[in-house]
């Protein structure tokens, strides 16, 4: 009696005889074979012949298919000695459910699930033969493959989808870590795909996507991946890069390939691609973040004009984050009432009266103290937060107008509104809502100063807003007038009441003839267009006098008052007294000559201050400095040119020369000998210089009065 290596429970009452057994085996769909102890073929049932295309007349000699390529399910080759029958013979152990992938001569796949069992001699316990079974599971395997295909590949383009991309990324990143080579992760978005879809239809769009996919697959190297991750978006993994620059060539080629023309139906179509790239392991993020970084870079490529690639820049990313963080901080500051309005008076220096105040936002920072708007507003100028802030300012200013009116103080309050806000479609509606509960006595005290006039690109949109708000009684000012290139256009088209001369011009007008020309120009323009003009940034009495001479009466600046908290404004206005010096300005209108004399005087005052401050700081001017020369200093330039031409006939003018020369001579001596003088000597010399200067200024004033009387 022979024994089969496994014991099947006998469920049969009837023991079939050999003929019956053969009949059973012959009808099995599973192939059954019997082998001798040497591995020689003894028997095959008809199913085997069908599996291996044998005719029953020519039974296989050895292992049926030993000449056909055979693989395990992981794709590694299946060697003859691993064949289940051979394993049974070698080990004496049953082999069950072994998967074999066989490629038949006609290139078709055959998947088999095989088992093999030893049959032992009952006495000697030696293998007498081996029985093997082979089930054809090709259909099942192919179905499984199709399922996998569907789960991992995009149905339209047959490129890997997002799921497989994730898997490929892990593999590619692991490879990069092992090899030390760079992996480029790219996101690609088609430019101009939507119009094709819209004009030629979805079918054409699909065809285009398929063609793009073919081109992508053809353009990347063997181990690389091109995946479609939705719509017209693709991801690319380019591995094995030796240098950080190598990806540029590949991506450059891809751009070229994608942008060459397509023929869809009868139509020729052109599109291009924007590609964002990040490099692993330089960018050492996780797969999700890597894709997001590539996506950000892709967005930048789009913004920069499409049909190009951008490399993700982690520095820039860090800064963008910091900037976003800053916006959030300012937002919190607004929520937590850390922002306050300070008010800077606007004074009519000719009338000697306070006209109003400009509201300026300050940040009472819990750690850093009081911050000026220039330090934090630029961070939100492109964010919608500037709109929220503007609304807060408007509401706060109106609340303040009401509060002051209750105290008996009726002044105009100017608020700064950015161009971005004016463009906000709800701006005038919201302003109207805010004003709804207020009487006109309040709303007509509100003045809106439009800042960043350079950003006023859409003048007609702004014009509508202004016209809207003016119906509510609100006045408008153009701030920073003179900066930017389109000031004149603004002035002509916009119904503004006030022009504010930018403080940078006012501040430098005494030194810089070009700035002075701009100030004069703006004042002239305001007069021509019948607008009120306000000078900002007035820092000295010289500025005031000069501006009065030029015909600008309303001013704002440190010399009048710095911005102050609301609580101090009423007191300041009550105790305000105009400086009697302001009356010195000639009236009604100055002559041009007089004006230049005034400028020369201001220049000289500056010269003197510079010399004295140099001496105080123990350095003095170098003796070669042209400012020490009595003809090269700014006063000298005026005196020996225009001054001489105009006024040489006047004795008061000629009297100036000698004193001026002496003043320069002494200043020069002090500067030259500064180092050798004792402390006492130095003080003495400096005192003499001050006295001489007083005498000179006195002579200048006398001359000016003579001129004014003429």
């Amino acid at each position, binding site marked *: 009696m022979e024994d089969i290596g496994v014991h099947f429970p006998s469920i049969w009452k009837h023991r079939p005889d050999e003929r019956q057994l053969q009949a059973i085996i012959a009808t099995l769909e599973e192939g059954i074979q019997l082998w001798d102890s040497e591995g020689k073929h003894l028997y095959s049932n008809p199913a085997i012949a069908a599996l291996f295309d044998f005719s029953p007349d020519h039974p296989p000699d050895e292992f049926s298919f030993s000449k056909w390529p055979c693989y395990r399910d992981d794709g590694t080759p299946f060697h003859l000695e691993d064949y289940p029958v051979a394993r049974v013979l070698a080990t004496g152990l049953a082999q069950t459910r072994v998967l074999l992938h066989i490629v038949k001569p006609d290139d078709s796949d055959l998947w088999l699930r095989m088992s093999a069992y030893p049959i032992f001699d009952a006495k000697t316990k030696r293998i007498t033969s081996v029985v093997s079974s082979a089930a054809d599971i090709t259909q099942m395997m192919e179905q499984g493959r199709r399922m996998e295909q569907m789960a991992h590949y995009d149905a339209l383009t047959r490129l890997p989808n997002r799921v497989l991309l994730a898997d490929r990324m892990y593999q590619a990143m692991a490879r990069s870590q092992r090899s030390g080579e760079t992996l480029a992760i790219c996101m690609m978005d088609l430019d101009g795909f939507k119009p094709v879809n819209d004009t030629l239809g979805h079918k054409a769009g699909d065809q285009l996507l398929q063609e793009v996919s073919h081109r992508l697959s053809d353009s990347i190297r063997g181990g690389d991946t091109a995946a479609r991750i939705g719509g017209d978006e693709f991801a690319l993994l380019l591995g094995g890069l030796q240098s950080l620059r190598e990806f540029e060539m590949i991506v450059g080629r891809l751009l070229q390939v994608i942008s060459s023309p397509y023929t869809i139906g009868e139509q020729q179509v052109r599109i291009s691609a924007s590609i964002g790239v990040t490099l692993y392991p330089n960018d050492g993020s996780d797969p999700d973040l890597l894709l997001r970084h590539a996506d950000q870079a892709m967005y930048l490529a789009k913004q920069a004009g499409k049909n190009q690639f951008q490399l993700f820049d982690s*520095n*820039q990313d*860090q*800064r963008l984050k*910091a*900037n976003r*963080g*800053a916006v959030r*901080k300012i937002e919190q500051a607004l929520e937590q009432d850390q922002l306050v309005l300070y008010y800077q008076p606007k004074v009519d220096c000719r009338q000697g009266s306070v006209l109003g105040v400009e509201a300026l936002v300050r940040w009472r*920072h819990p*750690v*850093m103290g009081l*911050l*000026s708007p*220039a*330090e*934090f507003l*630029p*961070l939100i100028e492109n964010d919608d937060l500037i709109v929220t802030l503007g609304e807060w300012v408007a509401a706060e200013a109106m609340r303040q107008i009401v509060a002051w009116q209750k105290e008996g103080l009726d002044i105009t309050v100017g608020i700064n509104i950015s161009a971005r806000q004016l463009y906000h479609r709800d701006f005038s509606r919201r302003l109207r809502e805010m004003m709804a509960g207020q009487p006109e006595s309040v709303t007509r005290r509100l003045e809106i100063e439009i800042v960043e006039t*350079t950003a006023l690109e859409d003048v007609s949109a702004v014009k509508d807003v202004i016209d809207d708000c003016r119906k509510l009684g609100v006045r408008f000012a153009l701030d*920073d007038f*003179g*900066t930017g290139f389109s000031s004149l256009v603004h002035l002509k088209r916009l119904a503004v009441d006030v022009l504010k001369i*930018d403080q*940078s*011009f006012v501040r430098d007008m005494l030194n810089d003839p070009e*700035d002075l020309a701009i100030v004069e120009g703006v004042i002239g323009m305001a007069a021509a267009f019948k607008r009120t003009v306000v000078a900002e940034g007035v820092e000295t009495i010289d500025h005031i006098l000069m501006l009065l001479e030029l015909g600008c009466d309303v001013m704002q600046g440190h010399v009048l008052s710095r911005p102050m908290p609301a609580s101090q404004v009423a007191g300041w206005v009550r105790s305000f007294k105009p400086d009697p010096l302001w009356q010195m300005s000639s009236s009604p209108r100055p002559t041009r000559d007089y004006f230049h004399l005034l400028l020369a005087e201001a220049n000289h005052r500056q010269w003197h201050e510079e010399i004295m401050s140099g001496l105080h700081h123990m350095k003095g001017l170098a003796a070669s400095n042209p400012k020490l020369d009595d003809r090269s200093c700014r006063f000298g330039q005026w005196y020996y040119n225009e001054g001489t031409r105009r006024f040489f006939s006047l004795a008061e003018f000629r009297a100036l020369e000698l004193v001026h020369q002496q003043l320069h001579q002494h200043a020069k001596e002090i500067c030259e000998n500064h180092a050798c003088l004792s402390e006492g000597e130095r003080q003495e010399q400096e005192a003499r210089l001050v006295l001489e200067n007083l005498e000179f200024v006195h002579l200048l004033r006398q001359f000016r009065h003579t001129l004014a009387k003429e």
Partner: protein
Amino acid sequence: MTNAELLVWSDSFVTGVAEIDEQHRILVNTLNEANSKLTDTSSIELLEQITRDLLSYALYHFETEEDLMQNYDYVGEKSDESGTHLEQHRAFSAKVVAVRDGLKSGSRISRDDLLSFLNGWLVNHILNTDKKLGAFISAKRGAA
């Protein structure tokens, strides 16, 4: 200034306070990037972007440092050092604001002037001022 003068982050910049050092790296990067991108003919937009980044940096980073100063009572224990420190912070912001004002009125700062100010300020501030603060905080943290 040429590209050869890019600042290279080195141990000499390390103050020993992790949160400060991390932010300093960002500033060094910002500066180096300005150095390689900026020319005297660069667009005003680029200058505005660089100065805006600097303001954002100032807001973020100075707050971090000044917060630490308060928490560790640097102000009380080293009033001279902390006074100088705060002054340098304010001067930095004031300079950046002045540069932006200049852009507005058409007197743009030259590339070299901006970079030498930033380079000078940064190197001096980190190597001297911040390191003193770093040593102070490190000592306090070590003792705690």
